[in-house]
Structure formats: C-alpha cells, structure tokens
C-alpha cells in the first residue's frame, strides 16, 4: 500500500510537470478587443486601451506634464502623461509600455459619442442608456477588456475615464 502511494505521488508529480507547459502571462499584442466607443481620439490620434503606447506618445507630441511611478517591487514604471485636456497612463509589459487608462481633465475633449465634462445626465442617458447606470452616479460601458465610466454629480458629468479591466 505504502509502495503504491509513493509511486502515485511520483507519477502525479511527473505528469503534472509534463502537462503544465508554462502558462504564458505575457501581455497580449492586441488592443484588448475594445470597440470604437472605447477608443478615445485626440487630434486625430486614436488611443485604445492596452494599445502599444510608443506610437501614440510619439503622435501626441510632448506632454504638458509627465510623472512616473515604480511599483512596489517590479522593474519598469507606471507612467502618467498629461496633454492638457486629458491624462493617459501606461503600464510596462514585456512588449513595451501599453495604455492602461485615460481620463478627462476638462471639457476640451470628448468621447467618441460626444460626451464631455459638464454635459447633462440626460445626454449621458441618451448616449449610453439608463441601463448603463451603475450605482448612484456612475454610468459604465464595458467592452472586451475595457471600461468607460462617466460620473455624474448634481446632474452634470464630472468625470470621464477609460480603464483597462483587470478584475
């Protein structure tokens, strides 16, 4: 009985080793499968979540401000670019920096559906439908690995953000 148990443990370990051929955790090369509503366009430059950031940053030109943060223990930096009307953050991946989030800083920029800071709640509901309400003051549109969140305060849009979904 004991002999069989020892053999079983060894066989199980060997089989598991052979069978788990290394789960790849590399970031995808794709833009995360987000639809057009979740692509933000600024001065003709399309910015999609999880897209390779290098070309986008080069097209957008010099940011008005830039900050970077190391993570607790990882190499590579989370970066935040400020382009006047909006902020964009990137995260480091094996394939270079990729777009992680975008959020509006003022009413000079708008979503693909024309929503900008200061717009009325009615306009948001016309665009995204009352069904998109999540909680008391937020409207969310989720597609693929991205999420657009519009926050309404006192009947007007106070925040618009795009974020890669990690949960």
């Amino acid at each position, binding site marked *: 009985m004991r002999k069989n148990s020892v053999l079983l443990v*060894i066989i199980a370990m060997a089989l598991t080793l052979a069978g788990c051929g290394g789960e790849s955790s590399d970031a995808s090369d794709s833009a995360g499968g987000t639809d057009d509503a979740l692509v933000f366009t600024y001065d003709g430059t399309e910015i999609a979540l999880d897209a390779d950031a290098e070309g986008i940053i080069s097209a957008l030109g010099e940011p008005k401000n830039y900050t970077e943060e190391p993570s*607790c*223990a990882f190499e590579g930096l989370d970066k935040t670019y400020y382009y006047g009307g909006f902020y964009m953050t990137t995260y480091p991946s094996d394939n270079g920096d990729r777009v992680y989030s975008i959020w509006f800083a003022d009413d000079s920029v708008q979503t693909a559906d024309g929503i900008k800071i200061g717009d009325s709640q009615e306009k948001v509901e016309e665009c995204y439908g009352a069904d998109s309400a999540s909680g008391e003051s937020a409207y969310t549109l989720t597609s693929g690995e991205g999420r657009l969140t519009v926050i309404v305060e006192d009947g007007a849009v106070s925040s618009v953000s795009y974020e890669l979904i990690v949960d």
Partner: protein
Amino acid sequence: MKNIKLYITAALFIALLAAVQALVVPKYMSSSREGALTGEYYANAGDNDVIFIGDCEVYENFSPITLWEEYGITSYIRGSAQQTIWQSYYLLEETLSYETPEVVVFNVLAMKYDTPASTGRPEQREAYNRMTLDTMRWSKSKWDAIRASMTDDERERESMFTYIFPLLRYHDRWDQLTREDFVYMFRRDTVSVNGYLMQMGVVPYADEYVEMPLADYSFGENSLYYLDKTTDLCREHGIELVLIKAPSLSPVWWDEWDEQISDYAEENGLMYINMLEHSDEIGIDWNTDTYDAGLHLNVYGAEKAARWFGAILSDECGVPDRRDDGNIAEKWDEKAKTYYEQKRSLENEEK
C-alpha cells in the same frame, strides 16, 4: 530486495526534484528583494512588542532600529510588496502563534483592494502573491492566505498545487537561471533589518500625483470583512490595533477613504493616524527624505517617521522601554550594528 531498490529510486527521484526546485525558485537576493521579507521573520520571532503589517509603506517607511534606540521599543515589520489585507490578516494570525505583541500597526492603504482580482494585472498580481506567500512557513494560516489570495479562476485551475510544489510554477525558469540561482540554491542572505528594507537614494518629490477619479470610493465588503477580522483577532489577544496611513504621497489616499477609516476607528475604539497630515511635524523633507519622488521614504525619512511615531507608541500606547533588559538589549545592539553596517555600505555606494 526489490522493495529496497524501489524505495532508493523513489528517494533519489524526490531528492532530485527537491534540488531542481531549490534551483529554479526565485531567490530575491539582488532584485525584487521584497520577495525575501516574509521568510526572514522566523529567525527574529519573539520579544517584539510592536508588529507592523502592510505593504511597502511599512517596510520602507519605518526604521525599527530608530524605535529601539530612541524609545527601547522592540518591533518587527511583517511587510511585503503590495500586501493585501487578507494577507496581512493571515500573516498576523501566523505571527500570533510565535508571539503576542503589545501593539499591531496596520497600514490602511491595502483597503483599496477588495478582491484578489482587483489587485492588478494577472501576471503582476500573481508575482506579488508569490513574493508574500512563497517563503511563509507551512501552516493553516499559509493555506488560508493562499486560498484568500487566489481568484476563482485560479482556484478552479487548482493553482494551490503550485504553492505546495513551487517547481510546478517555476520549472520554466530553467533558461533564465543566473549565477544567483546557484549561489543561493540552499541558503539566503538577510536583506532586511527586522523587516525594514533600507533604501538610500534621493529623488526629490517634483509634481503632485494625480489619479483617475473613482466611481465609488466605498471600501469593499471583503476588505472590510478582513479589517473586522483583524480588529477581532487583536481584541481576542489583548493587543492594541493602531491604524496608520504611512507618509507616502502616492498612491493617492483619497479623502473619502480617510473619512471611512476615521469612522471605522471611532466606531471600534481604535487609534487612527494619517501621517500624511503630520509630514511637517515629522520633519519630512520631500526633497531629501524620499528615494523615489515621494512614494517611499529613504532611510533618513524612515528614521524621522520612526522617531515621530515611536513617541506615540511609547506615550499613548504604553509600549515598554526594553533597553534595561540585558538579553534583549544585547540582541538589539547586534541588529543595530548590522543596520549601521548596511547604512554605511549603501552610503558608500551612493557616493
């Protein structure tokens, strides 16, 4: 005879697997040193009157040696990179099987993460989990910590086996092995001084950190559940739980979060100190006391933070001065020696 051969073969095979596992697991000696922190506790368990639990905002922001030298406070920082509250809870539970401190200090930034899935991108999240959990000794607390740290998907994939047999997780590192993997195959250097990971550089704080506004600032059900469990665990053991927000400028500590923690502390009769509000009083100079532009303190900042916080631990929490206890004093003098050697060495590297 046949049986003996079989047993010898099996024993050799298991020894071989153990050796291969020792070779391929990450060593965390020269890079990502945070991964070595959890395992360093066991050699220092016992006689610690204060235990810190939390993320990088504890293991980089407080110097236990300063607490000892200024107030005679014995402390250990059970911190690890992006330590979540469920990990903090189980690390504390495990700690209490070794010793019962007077005070537990919990850094509340971890409340921002409600579930394992919310803690970040999968590859990063998993690596952080490993750094906290892999060197934790086996116990029910470790088992529960792993379970709590896994997403539903990971549980379904039976990832627990990869924690029990890390070889299953790291076997594909064979082509990334470096000299470090061979040198530290069966031993480790100590990277911290009682859980404090010293940083020496100076990178001044420049611009205010901005973060994306949140749709909902309420702490999640799961994080509050573990905060309650931590409070209860401390109460059961007669330990004073002190909640702190360590002095780090990023990630942003939102006012809405601060309010919820203040309310929680009041409702539960706990002390809560947002040290960001006391930066001037502490004497933090964001031009000289941070090594990464305000995210964490360097050793000069960590000594200031410990000096300021030590007065509270001593005067308000009544943590005793142990400097007159010969055995303890002797041990801490040794730790202080190591600390200053490390400090000198890093200062020389910086020059």
